[in-house]
């Protein structure tokens, strides 16, 4: 039976843990709101860009202008998997889900492709993959500290170069897609070669292009890739905060339950102590008679 003081101390320590999880939950909620806003703000550009890209690409290759090399799909022998995780833990299954999916990808496709290289964005993914003896080609660090479109541009540029130089034949992004504050889905998305859908609507009327269709395409495709990386980063960030919020809420609830159980134990022990003292006093008084 633990002494009264032991129980009191444990209640105290659970209480201070609860304060921390509660604070983390509130911070995550605030950050989630901002991350969601960023996603909403980035949407119009991405949508319009995709429309333009589809419109141009669906016409490219039909006449003398060739399609863009980044749209060019060739037999896939070497692939690269870009694993996007967060820099910080304590976010429930957020990071481990992605890492597990990455491992499954490596196992399932070991025979399909000649070579699979892995690169990571985010410290947690890098660390867990390293612990599982996965060799990474490159670890992009410090991306999450300050999310910027420029960083996305850099990463997209480097991946494109590897594709153009023939070092890889396809690139996939693996990240948490943001569905809602409580739902994040691990998503594997083809990044390169760029897939285009046929343009809808006014396809019968061709546009005038300035300077030329192929030059415009060469301008738009890299922008589109930047946006793809950018959206994956934003989605991942929002998912991270959502996952952390949920995890910390559960932790706070668990702490409250634990405090309840401990308080009950404490009160019982105290009552037992009082009863014991009373009976001692009574029996002491009795013996004086």
């Amino acid at each position, binding site marked *: 039976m633990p002494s009264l003081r032991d129980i009191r101390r444990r209640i105290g320590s659970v209480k201070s843990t609860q304060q921390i999880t509660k604070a983390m939950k509130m911070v995550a909620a605030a950050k989630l709101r901002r991350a969601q806003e960023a996603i909403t703000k*980035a949407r119009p550009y991405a949508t*319009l860009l995709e429309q333009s890209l589809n419109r141009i690409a669906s016409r490219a290759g039909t006449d003398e202008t060739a399609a863009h090399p980044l749209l060019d799909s060739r037999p896939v022998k070497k692939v690269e998997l870009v694993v996007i995780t967060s820099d910080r833990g304590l976010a429930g299954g957020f990071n481990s889900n992605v890492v597990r999916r990455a491992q499954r990808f490596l196992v399932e496709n070991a025979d399909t492709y000649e070579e699979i290289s892995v690169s990571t964005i985010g410290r947690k993914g890098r660390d867990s993959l390293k612990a599982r003896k996965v060799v990474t080609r490159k670890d992009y660090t410090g991306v999450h500290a300050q999310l910027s479109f420029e960083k996305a541009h850099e990463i997209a540029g480097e991946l494109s170069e590897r594709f153009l130089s023939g070092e890889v034949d396809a690139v996939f992004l693996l990240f948490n897609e943001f569905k809602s504050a409580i739902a994040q889905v691990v998503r594997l998305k083809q990044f390169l070669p760029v897939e285009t859908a046929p343009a809808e609507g006014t396809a019968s009327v061709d*546009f005038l*292009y300035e300077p030329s269709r192929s030059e415009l395409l060469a301008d738009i495709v890299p922008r589109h890739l930047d946006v793809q990386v950018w959206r994956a980063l934003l989605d991942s960030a929002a998912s991270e905060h959502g996952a952390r919020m949920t995890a910390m809420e559960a932790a706070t609830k668990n702490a409250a339950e634990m405090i309840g159980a401990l308080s009950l134990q404490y009160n019982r022990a105290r009552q037992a102590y009082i009863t014991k003292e009373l009976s001692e006093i009574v029996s002491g008084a009795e013996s004086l008679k």
Partner: protein
Amino acid sequence: MAALTLEIVTPERRVATLQADEVRAPGVLGGFGIRENHTPFMSQLQAGRLTAVDAGREVHYAIGGGFLQVADNKVMVLADSAEEREEIDVERARRAIAEATERLRTLAAGDESYALEAARVRRAAARLEVAGK
């Protein structure tokens, strides 16, 4: 009578959605204007001033490159950056010009970063032009 709908977006946000009679934009092959019932058209833009005219009133934006698309009287500008006059940080633009010009002095025209620095100068110059300084 505003005939055109102008939409300006950047990767980070939607800058503006407004009505206009006329839009003037800095195309890579020279400036051009758009009015009602313009033929479907797509153009690359360079850093410069984008102007929307609505009932004689002009609104200016400093654009940092990108491209423009017009169809069905809808003008969409996908810019790398876009700022209205009030949002422009004049001090920063001045500094950017000074720094980039300084670096350009040490570079040859064929260098990799030459084009980058030159583009910085153009963007900053566009900002100053729109800010009217």
